[in-house]
């Protein structure tokens, strides 16, 4: 069950006593309702004083019910709290083991929502909702069973009606949910089109397309209207199903009561009392109908959370491999994402102590090659070897110890710059940290922000993209690992950034470097070039050799050289 899956194994046995106590609480509520039958029977008799013992019994059952329900809420709190703390831990642990490739923008949002939104919501529901909802669920059958002893035909009728009522409630809820989902999807589409319309005003106005008629926007808005009307044909049976079921139940039960009364099986006072009991059977269903949206939302939160735990984690080897000389090698490696082949048959080697530049048009898979070395993704075919071993043979720590990595998009965590650099080697001395920072040109950022401890803002928002990459380079320099993976930034390149990249390359001069390079200077720095296009390695070799061969890299090199000196010149502009 979903509740069980949410709980940590050690807390699961506590569900059984909780469920049993819920049943007891429902029975207590049922008892206090059923006690009305003798109570009213006596109260409306010639000796109304005989009702008093029954009143005492009713008071006792209500007070006992209160005590128990209060206790249940505290139990639910404990369960919810156990769920929250263990779920937080499980989610973080699991996210650390899920391949990075799983995270698209959508899934990132999903993970964030689960961590910060869904888990607290589940906790709040377990405290505020769970006890009341489960008592309401158990109450109608409890009353029905009790009625079997008091007036068995009525009890039987109630017992038959309970599944009908729950079924109608569920059906109504489902239909409503479906209609609302359709409506929400149509609204979202219309909204997205309107936003697109706003974004594209410049072009659309040139085309004189200032209206919605006949455009995708117009279609979306019309579809939204159609859906708004269609929602009715789901809403209507949804609401009607439930109220008709309630009505049919009421009618059936009153009829049974009337027949019993007509046959003289019960006296008038008890008949009246039983009508009250019948109404009390229906009451929890109304409460449930009101709680339905909240329950739905809780259910959704639970599903979203568990969905993340269901994502397969990356494999971990039984035994840790021992790295040899710091080299990197791709052997016929292939990788797909979302059913699309990103890399295919990639083979090349970066011998220890050399620098290799990966070059190629954008979208050719260059950055993915780097991420395979760091095992942010796993290959589908072939293998990637680091230090002479398949990367999948290492425990994560052992692999990462060999690598210093500079990604293209760098996220900093909230805190000071020094803190952000120190993460690379927490035990590094102050001197080493300053030296790494200075080499990467970070001290200039520090001066601007006003100190090593000055906050970098959420996600490093106080820094530009280029500056964030410089911090990342300082991290790599401080980490001082045998292999450097560097993904050069494409945008926001300024002279300081270029100097930082050069410093990193010099700092790692005698070590193994694999770099995704865009700038010609960076490319020139490499011992070997791997030219990648459409997910394939097209050429490899020394830069001069490749240029002399006049292949794809030679073209690329020439184009890039020309582009650098581009001038807008009407005289030479083509027509």
């Amino acid at each position, binding site marked *: 069950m979903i509740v069980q899956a949410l709980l940590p194994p050690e807390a699961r046995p506590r569900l059984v006593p909780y469920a049993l106590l819920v049943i007891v609480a429902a029975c207590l509520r049922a008892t206090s309702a059923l006690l009305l039958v003798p109570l009213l029977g006596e109260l409306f008799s010639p000796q109304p004083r005989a009702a008093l013992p029954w009143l005492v019994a009713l008071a006792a059952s209500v007070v006992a019910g209160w005590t128990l329900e209060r206790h249940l*809420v505290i139990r639910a709190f404990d369960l919810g709290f156990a769920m929250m703390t263990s779920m937080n831990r499980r989610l*973080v642990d699991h996210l650390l083991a899920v391949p990075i490739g799983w995270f698209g923008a959508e899934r990132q949002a999903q993970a964030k929502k689960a961590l910060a939104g869904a888990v607290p919501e589940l906790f709040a529901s377990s405290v505020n909702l769970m006890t009341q909802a489960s008592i309401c669920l158990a109450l109608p059958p409890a009353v029905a069973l009790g009625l079997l002893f008091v007036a068995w035909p009525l009890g039987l009728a109630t017992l038959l009606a309970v599944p009908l009522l729950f079924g109608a409630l569920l059906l109504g809820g489902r239909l409503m949910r479906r209609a609302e989902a359709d409506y929400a999807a149509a609204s979202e589409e*219309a909204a997205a089109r309107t*936003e697109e319309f706003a974004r594209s005003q410049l072009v659309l106005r040139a085309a004189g397309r200032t209206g919605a008629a006949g455009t995708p926007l117009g279609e979306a808005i019309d579809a939204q209207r159609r859906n708004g009307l269609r929602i009715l044909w789901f809403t209507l049976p949804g609401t009607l199903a439930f109220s008709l079921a309630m009505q049919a139940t*009421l009618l059936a039960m*009153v009829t049974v009561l009337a027949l019993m009364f007509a046959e003289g099986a019960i006296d008038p006072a008890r008949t009246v009392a039983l009508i009250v009991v019948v109404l009390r059977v229906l009451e929890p269903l109304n409460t449930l109908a009101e709680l339905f949206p909240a329950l739905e939302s809780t259910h959704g939160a639970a599903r979203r959370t568990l969905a993340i735990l269901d994502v397969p984690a990356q494999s971990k080897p039984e035994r840790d491999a021992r790295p040899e000389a710091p080299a990197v090698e791709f052997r016929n490696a292939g990788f797909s994402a979302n059913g699309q082949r990103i890399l295919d048959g990639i083979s090349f080697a970066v011998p220890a102590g050399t620098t290799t530049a990966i070059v190629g048009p954008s979208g050719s898979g260059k950055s993915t090659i780097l991420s395979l070395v760091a095992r942010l993704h796993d290959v589908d075919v072939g293998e990637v070897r680091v230090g002479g071993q398949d990367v999948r043979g290492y425990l994560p720590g052992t692999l990462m110890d060999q690598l210093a990595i500079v990604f293209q998009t760098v996220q900093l965590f909230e805190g000071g710059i020094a803190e952000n650099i120190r993460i690379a080697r927490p035990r590094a001395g102050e001197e080493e940290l300053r030296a790494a920072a200075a080499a990467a040109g970070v001290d200039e950022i520090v001066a601007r922000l006003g100190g090593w401890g000055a906050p970098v803002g959420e996600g490093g928002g106080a820094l530009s993209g280029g500056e964030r990459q410089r911090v990342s380079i300082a991290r790599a320099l401080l980490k001082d690992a045998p292999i450097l993976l560097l993904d050069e930034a494409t945008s926001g390149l300024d002279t300081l950034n270029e100097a930082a990249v050069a410093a990193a390359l010099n700092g790692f001069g005698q070590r193994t470097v694999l770099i995704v390079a865009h700038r010609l200077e960076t490319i020139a720095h490499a011992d070997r070039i791997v030219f990648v296009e459409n997910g394939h390695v097209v050429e490899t070799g020394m830069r001069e050799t490749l240029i002399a061969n006049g292949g794809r890299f030679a073209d690329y090199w020439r184009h890039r050289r020309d582009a650098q000196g*581009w*001038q807008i010149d*009407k005289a030479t502009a083509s027509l």
Partner: protein
Amino acid sequence: MAAGFQKTMMKALGATDHVMTVLSVTDITPAFRRIRFSAPTMIDGRETPTASYIRLWAPDPVEPGKVHQRGYTLVEPDASTGEVSFDFVLHRPMGPASGWAAAAKPGDTITASYYMFHKFEPPENPEGYLLMGDPAAIPAINAILGVLPPEAPVVVILQAHLPGDAAIPIAGHPGAEVLWTGPGTGALAAAVPVRDWSNWYAWAAAEKDAVKELRATLNRAHGFPLADIKHTAYWMHGKAMRLRKQSNQPGAAEETPAAAPVPIAARAEAGPRPRWRSQGGQELLAGLRWTLRAAGLLQGLISLMQLAPLVLLAELGRRLLAGEKSWEALSPLILWAVGLYGAAAMLSAGLMLWLHAVDARFGHALRLSMVAKLARLPLGWFTDRNAAAVHQAVQEDAGRLHYMVTHAVPDVVAGIVTPISVITYLFTVDAGLAGMLFLPLIAFVALFSHMMRGVADKLVEFANWTKRANAAASAFVEALPVVRVFGGDGRGLRTALEGQAGFLNGWQRPMAGRKVASQLAIQPPAFLLLITAAGCWRILSGGMAPADLLPFLFLGTAFGAQIMSVMYGFVPVREARQAAQRIGVLLEEAELDRRRSSRELPPGPLGLRFDSVSFSYKPRKPVLQDIDLVLQPGTLTALVGPSGAGKSTLAGLPGRFHDVTGGAVRLMAVDAEIDIRELKPQTLQRAVGFVFQDVKLIKASLRENIALARPGATLPEIEAAARAAQIHERILAAPRGYDSVVGEDARLSGGEAQRLSIARALLADPPILVLDEATAFADPESEHLVQQALGALIGRRTVLVVAHRLHTVMHADCIAVMEAGRIVQRGRHEDLLNRPGLYRDLWQAGERKQA
């Protein structure tokens, strides 16, 4: 002991007490005293928003032990020292607070409470700010003046109670006009100048009656919507300043400046009615007013029909108890009960159907009017911030209005009609027992407010924890690659989540028991017990007929739940009203003036002239000044200069991104010069094309994306444009070629999207082109292709380039060097380089960087 009760109530609502010690006393004017306090428990680093105030408990000068509560604005709070000042107005006869302040000396202590610091939040971008008040309001007004945007016009109207009051220092603001008026309840209201206050925001704080009158005057005489007046009564005659009477101060009335209104602008004679953007929301819903009223009435009827069966069943019980046995006498009751119940269900479904149909029509019309509005706004309006406003309006607010139209009214009506009818009916049956139904509610309120003690603080703390957990979760998820690389274990996130869980545990665990106690008090079993117990007692003591108990058993047990739903029912309605207001504001945005826009262009080459153009977004803050620039047909003109010089703003003017505030932009045709404001909008957009760095593709096929500006273009034309823009081959490589859809099977890189947009511009073929030079260097891997495409686009057009790298435009026919909104130099590259000036400085700086 009113103050004692007040204090208890405030505490129940979460206020906490702080003792403050006087540090120093400064008399700013004889009747205006500033006292600096040490209040380390209050000024402890928590947020103190602008114009926050606290409640001061001033001791009664006569009755010891009695205290009076007064609100005071925080002045210069300093979290590092825990110090804060308050300004006191010392008037005679003195009230308790001013009396205390008059005698205060360093070392004295006084108690203060704060509930929650309230925030000064004016609506966004009003036309100006009208601040009004008396000396007691000056500290708050000073605080507000300190945070208002410097370019905003501000009118401050102050009421002097004493001759010296006008000497109280008012915070400086570049756009503020300060008017003083004399004492008297109506003086402030009379002093409001007559002028067009459209879209102004008003803030007032003074004596209660004065504020009341002021508010009425602003609303009736000046047109201010009540929602746009933020007002607070700071004190009351005879209460705050104790027995203060006008006649006590004959001198004051004579010596202070006359209260005659000082007209700032001449009285507008039958001018257009002033308008506030916030009124748009009300008008939006106005069309639905009668529909919603009818729906409310119908729902009221339905609610009564839903209750009627219970009344009938009670009557059935009564007859049974009376010994009625004949089926003929009983069955009509049952049939009516079931029939009414069924009819109510049907009617309710019908109401739902009707409202959804109304909503579908309303939502459709609303969306179309938003789209139509977007098409009429100036292009410059479409900034990132306004994109967020569009998103808010179409994604979120439209949904809230959907709720408003379909559910809000029935929910609220049902929530009110049901409990009121129930309790009214039960009162007619037996008033004594009906009165007792309020007991559980009282118990609930008592338990609930006990539980809510200190909750305001906790809520703030909880919000902080949530914010922290959210930030940590975002940082963790976004930084996962880095976290993994450095062997991170997500410690930051774990700490934040554990902290949040720990806080919830510490706060909610003790509350869980209390919370359930308060809820159990209003659930059916409590009412059942109460009704049976009290009923037995009243029946046994002969105060009530036994059969009268039945209606209570049938109708009374759900009373608590019904009352609760009234309390919660109004929140979504308020949200929907705010949503309507936001959409209204969007629909009220200033449009491009198109009254004169009717001309077409003659054929032939086109040039462009900026004729002493100036432009500003807000008065007194010019962005462009005295721009004279001519782009001869077929020439290349470059705008260079430091960032913030106004290059991009100037480049947008030919497309009417904004309309100039002075001068004109003219198109130069062969034998005529035409102001662009006189051209048909579409004609202008066809004449002037733009290629910027941020490319906007729409979710449609690549073919449609290229043909966006010319929907009738044929495939060969589209292909030719794509070829010239170096994107044809890339398109053919996509899964469905030209029919591949952006975002589905066509995923374009930055450079590819750029080339696509250039193909678009080629197809549109505008004679004048405005170009951002950075476009050519945005994607290093395909720079040369983008550059070739740009070369094809430039062709023989008249081109205006916003340039960042000087060497890119060194062959331009004219280089205009901009600085701080003006053109400071112009000429060809060689000439500019030979003269001292900004261009040479910029060029040399660039050379150094290259080296």
